[in-house]
């Protein structure tokens, strides 16, 4: 018995060491980026010397503002992230509500269809999509990043599963009280599913902030770029000789907000809520 116990404690040690290793691998590139972004341009950054900072400086970030229109790009990123998230939450929850709480002809088939559309992604039709966007005059418009993804299959799928758990009595009671259908959704269902909306919102916000392919495709003016596109072009924006310190300062500028948002969300939510987000 005691030998068995020793063995299990040995496993505990392995588990803890393994996870420490995992955490190190997860954190290392990000910390390394932060270190280099505050080193002065003259300092050595090769190999291990990157890990010591002699003269921390914010000059790289200042240079960044000279190379790319940071504020404009930040606004573009923020606009698409915020509007993209709000609209997608609203329309996915609305559709999820219809699928979960109404009985109507073709409901099961339509829902299966929604799920099936997840397999073929919009990327597959990128070429004609660009032509369509041009016809709709949405090229170089931030709305081109918002409108196509106002209602996504994954979002509808996830929120439907969640809204199914809302008691039917609640919906019925509101209906008896004379609440209109949209009122039931807005005033009864939405408050109840707040946790699901919150975790879906944070996942969407991160995905939209990090979005690269679609902005690259639909936006082709400096003043319309999102921050992500501008940063990706940093290596060539100073005549092919942008110092690494400045490039990594740009990376820090796009990665840190996402990390901070994520940590805030983690602090606000109870344990395991992210796991709940993908239960379906």
């Amino acid at each position, binding site marked *: 018995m005691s030998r068995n116990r020793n063995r*299990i*404690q040995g*496993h*505990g040690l392995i*588990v*803890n060491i*393994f*996870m420490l290793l995992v*955490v190190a691998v*997860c954190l290392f590139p*990000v910390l*390394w980026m932060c270190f280099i972004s505050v080193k002065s341009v003259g300092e050595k*950054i*090769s*190999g291990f010397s990157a890990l010591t900072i002699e003269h921390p400086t914010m000059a790289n970030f200042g240079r960044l503002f000279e190379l790319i229109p940071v504020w404009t790009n930040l606004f573009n990123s923020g606009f698409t992230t915020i509007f993209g998230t709000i609209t997608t939450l609203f*329309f996915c929850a*609305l*559709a999820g*509500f*219809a*699928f979960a709480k109404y009985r*109507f*002809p073709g409901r099961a088939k*339509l829902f299966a269809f*929604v799920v*099936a*559309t997840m*397999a*073929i*992604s*919009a990327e*597959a*039709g*990128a*070429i*004609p*999509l*660009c*032509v369509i966007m041009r016809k709709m005059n949405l090229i170089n418009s931030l709305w081109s990043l918002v*409108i196509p993804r106002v*209602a996504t299959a994954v979002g509808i799928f996830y929120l439907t599963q969640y809204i199914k758990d809302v008691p039917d009595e609640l919906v019925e009671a509101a209906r008896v009280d004379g609440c209109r259908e949209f009122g039931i959704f807005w005033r009864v269902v939405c408050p109840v599913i707040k946790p699901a909306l919150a975790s879906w919102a944070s996942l969407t916000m*991160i995905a939209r*902030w*990090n979005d*690269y*392919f679609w902005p690259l495709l639909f936006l082709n003016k400096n003043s319309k770029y999102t921050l*992500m596109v501008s*940063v*990706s072009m940093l*290596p060539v924006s100073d005549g092919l000789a942008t110092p*690494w310190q400045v490039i990594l300062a740009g*990376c820090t500028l*796009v*990665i840190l907000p*996402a*990390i901070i948002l994520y*940590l805030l969300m*983690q602090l606000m939510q109870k344990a395991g809520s992210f*796991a709940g987000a*993908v239960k379906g």
Partner: protein
Amino acid sequence: MGGRKKAGQSSGKNGLLARVWKYRTPYLFIAPFFILFLVFQLIPVIWTFVISFADWNGLGSPKWVGLKQYKIMAQDYMFRDAFLNNVWYWIVAVIGVVCISLMIAVCLNSPRLKAKKVFQTISFLPYVCASVAMGLIFMMLFDENAGLINEIIVSLGGKRRAWLGSSQYAKIPVIILFIWRIIPWFTIIIYSGLLNISKEYYEAATVDGASVIQQFWYITIPLLKNILFFCALTVTIDIWKMFNESYTLSGPGTSNTSLFQLVYENGFKSFNLGYASALSVVLIIVLLVISMIQYKLRRSEEGI
């Protein structure tokens, strides 16, 4: 509006029209998805097939050339390279992602793990980081002269390698970046699967004297089979439309080009929309086959 749309389709059959009108509220609520799907997904995908039979630079009218683009594709070494790269990426990613996420999820679920919440929070971080920015960071980490990876290899007695400068190794940083970033997502899916396995199985097995390894092999794996399969399929879909990683970390020539990246380069850099569409068709077929497999299995296993 949705109600009216459905009604328009069934004009003439008065009974059906009345029925649709009766259920107009739910139809209206789900209409936005179907309209957007039609305009921004279904029409583009069908149109892709059409353009693939044409020569078109996006302006003017397309010139119909029949199977020409496909004939070009059959001869094109760039297509062959990109396709084979993608097969390589696919195999490595599926094995790598499923194995590593499973290991991390099992460890996160272990009762022996200290400070579980901290580990959980930090191990999700890579998923939050933008792949493009991480691509730039990896570009530096894997730099031949200044990069840390080479420094570590040399200090361990290995040979300095031109990771992104040689066609031999250029795929490696790309797939490491892809796996590094995507793992947390699958860890969470597998972890939530582990939470659903009843503790009683393990308790009974421990009483019977089964070792931890045996428990993992005979309880955890069989019960997670569906979830692991779901993960493998999702990774498959993600890797076939991979763009950001190989685009930012592009090596010499087509050494690490992904198929979707080739679509982009042909379509939006050389404006050869016909050929790019033909390449997209290959991509669509791959994705269709995968989803067909998924559908078959979903039916037989009733819900993953």
